[in-house]
């Protein structure tokens, strides 16, 4: 059997996220956002990172505020239910962060191109838009067969994809369910994949349903156990979205000072995701619990 890939989250981030890395995260968009991993990256003050994603729901803004980020290649950075991300806004307006402006479609095609091992993907979006002015990964092209004008999207191969899943085994085999966003493409495109999981389970659990496996285990670099590791975003089967945290964050990001207080409290003020959970408080977490379970009808893989 292969060697275990199980690490503590802090060790996984320390070993596999060098300064200057390009990282795809938040790939499922509003669900399964790897907040615990992002927070550990902030705690370790990684530097000059490039963040890749479709829409990003406050995690990118937090990592920018912590000074970890020099470049963003994404479709949307902000706070989904309140609007702007103020650290992002200040960093861009202050010229401290470079942005490549994607749409959800161009970002998914950039990662799919890398996942397919080809240098670009053709698309029909963004023609006539200003995205061409602020995204060097887009180029107009003619279809070799029909002559139609298309948008060629250049492949983006992340150094890392960091994803949060429901359950994984210690060898990197993981089950992920719900809306997948661009998670599959990101994992297949990335050189290394780091998985944080609500639960670490026996390999038999994962092997019982190979169609639910998010990416082949042999491509995964590290697995870390991070219960509530996607809070305040929702995890299908585990907990609901903590809307209040997103609402509170609007104030936290509002000014540089306010954010420094937030950073000192929620990141540097706790040791790990366990400390974070305590700070959120059991009562608050209990309110997010799944109250109406809805298990799947079984499928059979026997012979």
């Amino acid at each position, binding site marked *: 059997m292969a060697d275990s890939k199980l690490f503590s989250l802090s060790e996984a981030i320390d070993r596999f996220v060098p300064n200057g890395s390009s990282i795809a995260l938040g790939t*499922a*968009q*509003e*669900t399964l956002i790897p907040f615990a991993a992002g927070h550990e990256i902030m705690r370790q003050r990684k530097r000059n990172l490039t963040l890749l994603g*479709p*829409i990003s*729901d406050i995690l990118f803004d937090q990592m920018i505020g912590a000074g970890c980020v020099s470049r963003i290649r*994404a*479709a*949307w*950075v*902000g706070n*989904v*239910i309140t*609007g*702007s*991300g103020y650290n*992002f*806004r200040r960093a*861009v*307006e202050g*010229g401290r962060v470079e*942005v490549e*402006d*994607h*749409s*959800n*479609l161009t970002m*998914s*095609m950039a990662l*799919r191109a890398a996942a397919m091992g080809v240098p670009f993907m053709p*698309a*029909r*979006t*963004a*023609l*006539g*838009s*200003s*995205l061409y*002015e*602020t995204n060097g990964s887009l180029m*107009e092209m003619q279809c070799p067969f029909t002559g139609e*004008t*298309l948008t060629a999207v250049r492949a983006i191969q992340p150094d890392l994809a960091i994803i949060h899943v429901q359950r994984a085994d210690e060898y990197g085999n993981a089950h992920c369910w*719900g*809306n*997948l*966003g*661009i*998670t*599959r*493409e990101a994992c297949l495109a990335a050189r290394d994949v780091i998985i944080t999981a609500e639960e670490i389970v026996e390999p038999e659990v994962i092997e019982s349903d190979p169609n639910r496996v998010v990416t082949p285990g042999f491509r995964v670099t590290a697995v870390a156990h991070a219960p509530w590791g996607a809070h305040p*975003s*929702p995890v*299908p089967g585990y907990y*609901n*979205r903590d*809307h209040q945290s997103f609402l509170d964050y609007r104030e936290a990001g509002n000014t540089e000072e306010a954010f420094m207080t937030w950073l000192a409290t929620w990141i540097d003020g706790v040791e790990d995701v366990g400390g974070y959970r305590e700070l959120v408080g059991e009562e608050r977490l209990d309110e997010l619990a*799944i109250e109406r379970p809805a298990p799947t009808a079984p499928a059979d893989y026997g012979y």
Partner: protein
Amino acid sequence: MHETEYTLAQLMVAAAAREIEDGDVVFVGMRLPLLGFQLAKNTHAPDAVGVYELGIVRHSAAPEPILTMGDLPNLYRAQWLADTADLMGLLQQGYVDVSFIGGAQVDRYGNLNTTYVGDRPDDVTRLPGSGGACDLASLANRHIIIMVHEKRRFVPEVDYTTSPGYGDGGDWRRRVGLPRGGPAAVITTRGLLRFEEESKEMYLATVHPGVTVDEVLENTGWDLKVADDVQTTPEPTADELSLIERFDPDGFWTGGP
């Protein structure tokens, strides 16, 4: 702003719902459209299909109020949970009938800006960006724009075209290679605007109850065309209001002005 038994947001949600036809495949966006789709589903468009960029396709309505498309009730008993790219394929193929997007700036040809306001690179305000908006504006058979109607937002020409409308008018979309579509309506805080058949220039179609045409013109940054027979935007019915209140019980999106 309004002194009636419904809020402006509720009026706009009802107007958005009316833009959806039964059987439509609707690419549902954030905020008010999220409610507009649910309202249409529960009134005149029971067979509409909702597509959400996260990778969700729904035929039934979510069983509980949701604040955002990623809320777990919106995944429960979905028709399909898949990759964003799969849904982008439906969009590029032309299966999406209508979509909704909001913005910070719109111009007379319905071009929308949600990225940079001001002069790049130095004197600019940075906004969140496209998300899926550029894709929806490029590829849906028609799209609906939701706007706060202010002079600084209704400008002769947007500073940045995040989501293409009709460019500089006429057959611009065909010329740049967009396969179809364009904005069908702009639902604002003051009225509802549409686009001329040939020129593709925006014009005022209806004003909301209590709003005058002059008020709309004063709050538009160019010499806005006006329909010969400007009507009043229909008020939401009692049934519509009770449904909207069911979907947004705390008035998070549709509470007072």
